[in-house]
């Protein structure tokens, strides 16, 4: 059955960043140079072809974009400047918007202004909420103690509530990702055993990102891993230990040492990425989508306000620390609330999932019995030499 092409898809993908894909003339240098391109997942050429031709459903069900870490080798090798690396990046953005059933993600990726507006709106609501709530029971000059403006215990509960909502959204998107890439594919039927056997891939790739390390250039992997681990450490500290390290003014080094390390990691990686994007130092930094800038700006904002409120609090300036804390939260809530399910942060989940699904899919495809080969009839006259 012939697949109907959608000639408009290539235009649609432009706002996601795929501006040069039409230049590709399929020499295949990109797939040849990519260390990850292996049967049955050949890329970037094949997904680029699907995109050029507008084979929407084929793209929607492909895992290939997630198997790419954007080391940029392919873009460097491309004789036509078709930017295969950036095309894969754009496809990841497009897929994120496809997995998201709310349509919010699509809105954000298609318009940076709307995303900015949403971030600002969420920030204002967050600020207003926390100020009103703080004033209703505490004093602006008290950072901790019984009369605290934003008591750590309550914030902790708020964090868990927010995390719950985000997790539900993200998991729904993950389920849709499974449906698009594996579930609805009638040509394969992966066994339950295969799902269980390969499950270890999820935490493995999440924690180590060891696949990224296979790229020829090691530095991007290091930076990426540092950023991710710092983020993860901070998340664990906040989700599980907030009431323990939030009150001061004493510094509990057993916990704080992790906090300082994570902060340094976040700061370093963010500055590195910002500098890279501004100066376009590496292939993966050459093209910046609006969402990339917003992501880095939020990360920077949250890190700085976090550091500041910590210093103000330990310096005994309770009121100033409280104000900074509210401002900090005005960054944190939109960053997590919007980025995790709808935008860039979601790749934290999609990428390890893609490795997992890819393994399951490859195993299932290997199990599909090959067509029985035609028996080779050899004429006895020809073999008569015996």
């Amino acid at each position: 059955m012939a697949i109907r092409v959608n000639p408009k898809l290539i235009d649609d993908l432009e706002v996601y960043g795929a501006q040069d894909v039409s230049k590709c003339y399929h020499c295949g240098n990109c797939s040849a140079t990519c260390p990850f391109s292996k049967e049955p997942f050949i890329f970037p050429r094949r997904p680029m072809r699907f995109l050029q031709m507008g084979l929407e459903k084929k793209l929607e069900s492909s895992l290939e974009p997630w198997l790419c870490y954007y080391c940029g080798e392919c873009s460097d090798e491309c004789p036509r400047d078709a930017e295969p690396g950036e095309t894969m990046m754009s496809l990841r953005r497009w897929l994120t918007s496809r997995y998201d059933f709310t349509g919010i993600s699509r809105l954000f990726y298609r318009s940076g202004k709307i995303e900015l507006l949403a971030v600002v709106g969420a920030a204002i609501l967050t600020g207003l909420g926390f100020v009103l709530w703080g004033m209703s029971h505490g004093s602006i000059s008290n950072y901790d103690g019984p009369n605290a403006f934003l008591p750590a215990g309550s914030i902790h509960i708020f964090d868990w509530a927010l995390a719950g909502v985000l997790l539900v959204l993200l998991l729904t998107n993950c389920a849709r990702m499974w449906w698009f890439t594996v579930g609805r594919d009638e040509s394969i039927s992966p066994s339950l055993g295969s799902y269980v056997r390969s499950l270890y891939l999820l935490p493995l790739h999440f924690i180590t990102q060891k696949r990224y390390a296979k790229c020829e250039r090691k530095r991007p992997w290091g930076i990426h891993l540092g950023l991710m681990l710092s983020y993860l450490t901070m998340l664990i500290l906040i989700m599980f230990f907030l009431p323990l390290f939030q009150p001061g003014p004493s510094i509990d080094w057993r916990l704080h040492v992790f906090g300082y390390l994570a902060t340094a990691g976040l700061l370093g990686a963010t500055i590195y990425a910002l500098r890279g994007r501004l100066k376009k130092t590496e292939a993966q930094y050459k093209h910046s989508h609006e969402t990339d800038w917003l992501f880095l700006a939020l990360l920077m904002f949250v890190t700085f306000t976090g550091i500041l409120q910590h210093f103000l609090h330990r310096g005994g300036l309770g009121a100033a620390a409280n104000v900074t804390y509210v401002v900090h939260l005005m960054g944190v809530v939109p960053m997590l609330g919007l980025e995790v399910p709808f935008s860039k942060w979601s790749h934290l989940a999609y990428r390890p999932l893609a490795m997992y699904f890819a393994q399951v899919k490859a195993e299932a495809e290997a199990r599909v019995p090959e067509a029985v080969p035609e028996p080779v009839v050899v004429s006895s006259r020809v073999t008569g030499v015996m």
Partner: protein
Amino acid sequence: MEERKIGVYVCNCGTNIAKMVDCDGVCEHAAQQPGVVLAKSYKYMCSNPGQEMIIEDIKEQGLDRVVVAACSPRMHEPTFRKALQTAGISPYFLEMANIREQCSWVHDGGEAATEKARALTLGAIRRVQYHQPLERRSVNMCPNVLVIGGGFVGMTAALELADGGSQVYLVERQRNLGGNVARVDLTAPYLDSARDMVTALITRTMEHPNIFVFLNSEVGSLEGYVGNFRAVVDTVWGDQATSNEYEVGNVVVATGYKEFDASRVTHYGYGKLPNVITSFEFEKMLRAGRVETKEGKTPNYAAIIHCVGSRNREFHTYCSRVCCMTALKYAHELKSAVPSCYVSDLYVDMHAFGKGHEDFYRRGSEAKTLFLMYAKGDHPVIRKAEPKDGCEMLIEVNEKLSREVIEIPADLVILMVGMEARDDSDAVARLVNISRDKDGWFIESHPKLDPVATTTDGIYIAGACAAPKDIPDSVAQARAAAARILARTIRGTIDIDAVFAEVDEDKCCGCRICNGLCPYSAIEFNEEKKRSNVISALCKACGACVAACPSSAITARHFTDEQIFAQIEGVLA
């Protein structure tokens, strides 16, 4: 017969000959033959020292015949003839024994190869004794030129010749000059207007004092030979027909091509689906400035299909060369006429070999032309779409680069029809006495080294009548043909090889067997005398008439019976 003084020179050709043939042995054997004054072997006879050795021997030893046992006469006969001439004897006193191509290169060595070389050399020694001191002749070269075909190529050649001082008779069958290029809108890859180029050419051609333009005309007959043709031009204006004869020295054939008839291909629905059109029909649309479907709607989707009639066994196996770039030009012109239109380009291979072509291809892809590759023999199939499809037609294609069978929407389909030889190319070929290949294209004298000359002296071919060609290549050929003609007319005379067939009128019985046999139409029949006569300027000395003549009335100069018998006896001795 008086005693000859023959010199025999055996060439080693480095090791080319010496590796297989005992050259000194051949020398010794030759030296013992009657009439042979000296026999020498040398590393390279064709080198300057080699030639000088022969010249000195002729002068000092008084040699009057020379045998060179070396390579094929096609390779170095002119070289050694020149040496003989320099030494002061007739260049036709030379005979070559081919002991390289016909001996050392084709044998495994050993005594047999040497024995063959000895035999070939002896054949040459016996033959050369009968060689005559032939005289080269020269005939007048008429400076007028006949150009057949008033297209881009014909006009370019005519202008070049006329500027050089020749009187040019330009014969065009149609009412207007311009040919196929006049039917085109823009040209690839620089998007210059074809109309502007053609108009400028026509104006110059019509106004040139040295060019006589014959419209509505055909060449009725062409008689004679190089430098001395008589052309009859038939002109028809309304019900008035005139016929005039002109003297011309050379002829340029620039009759061009005709486009492939798309209705011969059934699977694209041409003629049945109204919006499947040929490239020339699309050019018409472009020239009218209106790109629309037959129903008058603006197309949202357009598809271009390459290689219609070209590059397949069913119709023509050759590539028509211009369609790929023309297709890219259409993609460009479609996008500028209808910016919202999605253009697909279905090709087998993208041939972007010319200057600026690869950049043009790149620009085509940057403009988001959807390039789809199909396999030779696995052609796309077009069918009418349903109302729900939102387009006129659907094209199903097994796309090679994605390995997917896909379906693309189309409101307008353009078939890139290839070029083919004109229906009457055989008549033209007969008229000017040149040959055609299996596809009907005129054959050049040498495809690489002599691309505009033909096997008939004085007849030149230029442009797409010889094979599909784009405008730059055709113009280059037009100018090349003109340059060749001008170079030959500048001397006023033309040398004719002394080797040709002769009819002994006393022996000729007027049976005319030879007339039809001659592949070069070099034999004319004198109705008054009832005798055949060879036009020496046209004769290529193939010998067909000599062998066929029942009265033994025809002799080939330099290939007389006694020369050939002597050679045979020598070889067999």
